[in-house]
């Protein structure tokens, strides 16, 4: 197991290197640059600015300089939000993104697995259809519809919660963003759980458990859930990375801090250092969480453990 973990970590380094390289060149291949805008800059000023950001050097040289900098932990200054370095921007936004993301994923896990199991145990009944119907809606209704709706209902009409804002991180400001982030995940996890639970409940070892005379509750909790959770666990890796790196929709609608916005805005602004920064964070998270998922998989699946 330790050897396996070590091997996986070793693969992570070249993977990360490839991600950085591809992202760097793809970003530069996109037409238009950070200073192409409605108001065209006079040529001498454009020259000055490019020199100030090292953008006047040959691309390969820029790449080598960049690699050298990130090895020293220097992600450089943002081009468009000039008063902050990329590291400062990520450090300022990441705690909020992680908080919102983790809360949402925990919420999604509790409700998703709960609802999915409940539906599977009542397979093909009205309850099952109701839960899965709602889950389907949850998946189908995009965040950018759900978030303003929540804000309108709970903020404007009912005045129960702030419509948006962060308020220094007060709990009341976080409730709606967390719910909006969690809802699609609840729906997806519920469907996944139901599907695999139905399958597990028909498997031989469950039949054996029942034949031994175990109570249904114990059969489900002790035996079935473990097996049914496997697909959910493998889904959780990328899903957690996705919600923890923020969401442009949630951040822009609820005015919450986070790094999700930078994925979109920095790319559109051609803020090269910031794009690279968030891509690296995302890649590291994905690699780490996938690694974690593999480890948990080993614990959950007796077949893998013996291999």
């Amino acid at each position, binding site marked *: 197991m330790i050897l396996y973990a070590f091997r996986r970590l070793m693969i992570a380094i070249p993977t990360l290197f490839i991600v950085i390289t591809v992202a760097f060149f793809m970003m530069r291949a*996109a*037409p*238009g*640059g950070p*200073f*192409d*805008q*409605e*108001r*065209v*800059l*006079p040529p*001498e*000023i454009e020259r*000055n*600015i*490019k*020199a*100030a*950001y090292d953008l006047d050097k040959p691309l390969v040289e820029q790449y080598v300089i960049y690699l050298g900098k990130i090895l020293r932990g220097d992600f450089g200054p943002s081009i468009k*939000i*000039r*008063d902050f370095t990329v590291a400062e*921007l990520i450090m*300022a*936004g990441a705690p909020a993104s992680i908080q919102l993301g983790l809360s949402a994923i925990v919420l999604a896990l509790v409700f998703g697995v709960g609802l999915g199991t*409940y539906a599977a145990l009542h397979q093909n009944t009205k*309850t099952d259809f*109701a*839960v899965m*119907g*709602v889950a389907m809606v949850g998946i189908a209704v995009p965040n950018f519809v759900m978030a*303003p709706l929540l*804000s*309108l*209902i709970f*903020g*404007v009409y*009912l*005045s*129960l*919660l*702030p*419509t*948006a*804002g*962060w308020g220094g991180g007060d*709990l*009341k400001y976080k*409730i709606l963003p967390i719910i909006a982030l969690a809802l699609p995940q609840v729906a997806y996890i519920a469907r996944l759980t139901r599907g695999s639970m139905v399958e597990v409940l028909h498997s031989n070892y469950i039949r054996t458990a029942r034949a031994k005379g175990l109570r249904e509750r114990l059969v489900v909790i002790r035996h079935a859930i473990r097996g049914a959770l496997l697909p959910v666990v493998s889904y959780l890796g990328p899903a957690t990375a996705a919600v923890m790196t923020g969401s442009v929709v949630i951040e*822009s*609608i609820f*005015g*919450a*801090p*986070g790094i999700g*916005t930078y994925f979109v*805005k920095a790319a*559109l602004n*051609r803020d090269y250092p910031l794009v690279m920064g968030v891509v690296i964070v995302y890649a590291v998270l994905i690699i780490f969480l996938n690694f974690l998922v593999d480890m948990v998989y080993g614990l959950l699946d007796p077949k893998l453990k013996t291999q």
Partner: protein
Amino acid sequence: MTFIARTRSGLVDGLLHSSRAFLVGTAIIASSMTFLSTTDAQAQKVLRVGNDGEPQSMDPHFISTVQTSRISDDMFLGLLTYGPDGEPVAGAAESWDVSEDGKTYTFKIRDHTWSDGVPVTAQDFIAGWERLLAPETGAEYASLLYIIEGAEDINSGKEGAKLGANALDDKTLEVKLTAPAPYFLAQLTHQTAFAIPRHTIEKFGRDWVKAENIVVNGPYKLEEWVPNVHSKLVKNDAFYDAANVAIDEVVYYNYEDLTAMQNRFRAGELDVTRMIASEQISWLKDNMADSLRIAPYAGIYYVAIRTNKEPFGDVRIRKALSLAINREAITDSVLKTGEIPAYSFVPPGTGNYGEPSYVSWKDQSYADNLAEAKKLLAEAGYGPDKPLKFTLRYNTQENNKRFAIAAQNMWKQIGVEAELFNAEGKIHFADLKVGDFELARAGWIADYNDAQNFLFLGETRTGPLNYAAFNNARFDELMLAAEQESDLKSRATLMQQAEAVMMEEQPYIPIFYYVSKQLVSPKIEGWIDNAPDRHLTRWLDLKN
């Protein structure tokens, strides 16, 4: 919870009743929400502004968006500053003299200090300008000061170039211009012309703009900037006129999602939104008329025609394309967002100008316009057998798309086949810069309130910003003469003549004048709609 109860479906009902846990959870959430909804008492006067974009920097030399300059205008005081009605008024300079030839300005600096108590001097202004112009600074807006002697040479890195600005003593600043430019005073309200606290920059370098280091000479000081969320400014007690500043704190919330910003305004969480979600304008007119403010804004939305690409060198074709655009239909039926049909390039009300020179056919009926357009096209050799074909480019945005489709259909009426092509803003403007287009949508918002700031877009010497590559000797000559003219009235006449040439030649098809669209709470006092759309917090107050 009544809203939810009303919208519940039978299916959801089944779920709710069957899940005891869900009901318990709902009860807990509902009770905690009621607890959380109590609002904090506000002892101070706090102005909460919805700003439609993230600030770029608190350093005036690195600001090029209006969303950021709203913040820097509250923190820094230029030699002149915006008054309550957007007109330039005395700021850091308490008075000034202009020489006979209009080329030398002498400013008397007001006795005032930076927020740390260090006096503001004439040298602080010169240092600011020199920093802005130094090539290694890489300031985007450096060209705005090119009117000062030597400025352009310094910015281009010419050896031995010297700036035409001298500190006669600590409180007297003399500035020499390359030409009599009556707009120079208005230009001094712009962030590029602000003084900088040399002592702070020397001490902290690039980090001087961090909240813990920054010093300012304006009415407000940066307290915190949370990226993606807000920038909070608090009253600067060292400001020379602090006694007359009513609002204690101003918070600029960044919002690119305009509907979300509007929802916050509706919920009473914002006092101002500096932009509205245009597609909801009719709803706003019906329901929030007392807060909605639509006012002329110093900007023009236009279509550039690349005149050095065949067949667009032919004025008859350009004029026909312009004639065929039904501007009223675009503003009133297609966009419906309050814009004003444009028949000139300089918006009415622009400073140092008077009445703009409109196209000669401004008051002609649309049917007559179409007939004339067809005639002109026929003369140029185009007709049903040989239709004129080209591509109209625009940057991807809903209103641009609606305009482009409308224009395409209007041109169809005169037998013109326009293809539409849209690209993301960065790509669109990069292509415009190198002239890789036939017709393209563009826009211009004035940097300072003067007709020259619109008309220069048609001058040959303007270079890449002259998207149309308009090259007209008469126009250039008139603009040059206007630049050398120190008498305001004669200068305006020369520019009006230049605009008349431009309107006859139509390298740019004016479509509509921009308007500012915002929500301003009736609680706010002192808000005066104005064309530069400047509303410094120091002039405002909040009623209880």
